[in-house]
């Protein structure tokens, strides 16, 4: 994963988020406050706008730059959470010279832990973490077993969509939906949906690589 791959992923993620506008907006209107899609779009466009600058940086520096940019662009809860993810991922990658699949998995795990810390949240609270935590756990496990990046991607696609589906019957205890009590049950979480879309997009890119 070099910075040109990061730019490639970022462009694909932006396209995927834009393509899912209707789904994401609808979920956020049901149990949120209707701004999640707009914030995601603003963040994605800010990152694709950085492509030239990112291409001159190392992967770790590019991820840190992405984090800083998201922090000053998105706002809301997503801004600090995604920023913490990328900045922490960057910090972890900086500690090693080579970049193996396992190192990426470990950096991803560190990023997810940073989100948990910043949001003071765990699995089961009807948030993006219900997608991210199972994906991080499986990613590390499969990478440790030495599985190929294609096999890992295929597995993570399923785990991410299972994670998203798991939010349907949860009570929301974090975020805007937390005031809803039982009325949040039956709805998917919009933040979990965005994360599933992003993970699915990256996995598809890995799977389609020659």
């Amino acid at each position, binding site marked *: 994963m070099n910075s040109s791959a990061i730019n490639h992923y970022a462009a694909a993620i932006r396209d995927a988020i834009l393509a899912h506008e209707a789904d994401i907006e609808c979920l956020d*209107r049901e149990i949120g*406050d209707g*701004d999640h899609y707009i914030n995601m779009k603003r963040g994605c466009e800010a990152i694709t706008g950085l492509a030239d600058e990112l291409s001159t940086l190392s992967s770790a520096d590019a991820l840190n730059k992405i984090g800083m940019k998201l*922090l000053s662009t*998105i706002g*809301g809860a997503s801004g600090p959470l995604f920023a913490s993810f990328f900045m922490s991922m960057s910090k972890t990658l900086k500690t090693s010279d080579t970049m193996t699949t396992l190192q990426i998995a470990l950096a991803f795990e560190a990023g997810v832990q940073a989100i948990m810390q910043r949001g003071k949240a765990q699995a089961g609270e009807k948030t993006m973490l219900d997608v991210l935590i199972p994906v991080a756990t499986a990613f590390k496990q499969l990478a440790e077993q030495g599985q190929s990046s294609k096999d890992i991607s295929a597995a993570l696609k399923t785990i991410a969509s299972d994670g998203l589906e798991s939010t349907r019957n949860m009570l929301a205890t974090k*975020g805007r939906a937390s005031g809803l009590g039982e009325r949040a049950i039956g709805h998917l979480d919009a933040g979990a949906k965005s994360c599933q879309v992003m993970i699915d997009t990256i996995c598809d890119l890995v799977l389609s690589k020659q």
Partner: protein
Amino acid sequence: MKKFVNNIDHMLVESLTGFATAHGDLVEVQFDPTFVSRKQKSQQKVAIISGGGSGHEPLHAGYVGKGMLDAACPGQVFTSPTPDQMLAAAEAVHADKGVLFIVKNYAGDVMNFEMAAEMLPFEHATVLTSDDCAVVNSTYTTGRRGVAGTVIVEKCVGSLAETGADLASCKALGDKINLLTSSIGVALTSCTVPAAGRPTFDISDSEIEMGVGIHGEPGRRREAMRTADVIVADMVNAIVHDFEAKQLPTQGDILLLVNGLGATPLMELYLIYNTAAKLLTEKGFSIARSLVGNYITAIDMAGASLTVCLLDNDIKQHWDSPVHTAGLRWGC
């Protein structure tokens, strides 16, 4: 959606530019990072800074000025501002006595102000407002939301800061007022986030949303529309129950704030005040101060919130002190 718009992406900048021009004697606005600050920088006082998503005008920029805030950081509509805004605002207005952030208790606002505070090179503290009694507090939720009580906190803490009080005293007063204040809102219609272009929630002509948040977050219950007296009685009861739950006295002097959420006319707000004042007096409270109008809105939502703040002499004095901002002005 029918709104006064040129280009959705420029709405905030155009509106803030208009605001800063209209109130050019009081404030100035900076962009990228965006914040509104007093025209005359204050000396030798704690810098009081607030901020939050746009769409709640006059909160917060409308409360920048003498006797209230030193700066406000407006975010995108209903979206928390970002740490670079808070850092730039603090850098611009701090006056060597520390910085106090007044933050409404929402996950996004809390996290962005927290990250800003971690990077702030000055002495700082934060008052979190959480006066909305519609959301039941528990260890499992993000907690109670900060709503109209925030205006009272900003007014009184701003007043105390003008006297040269230190950071700890300013924070203590803010925390005290937050504890002594309870609010609840009710929506007759949804609001429409301009960039989303459609109402945030669906609600029929015969329904109301009791306990609605200032972003159109659904409250606890969808109820049938009834007479104003019945709706207001439910709101008053919710506040009194909250006072009991907080083990506060349900008698004594209070400030009663009837706040419009954006599309409810003053005529109806005064009608609500009339009922609320009667019921609260019957319960044993004495209404010593009143405020009725649009002070913290939810874009174009029809609806209102009730806020009751228990007053002691300290709070009364700071409520009455001179204030000159775009949104509140008396005594000067």
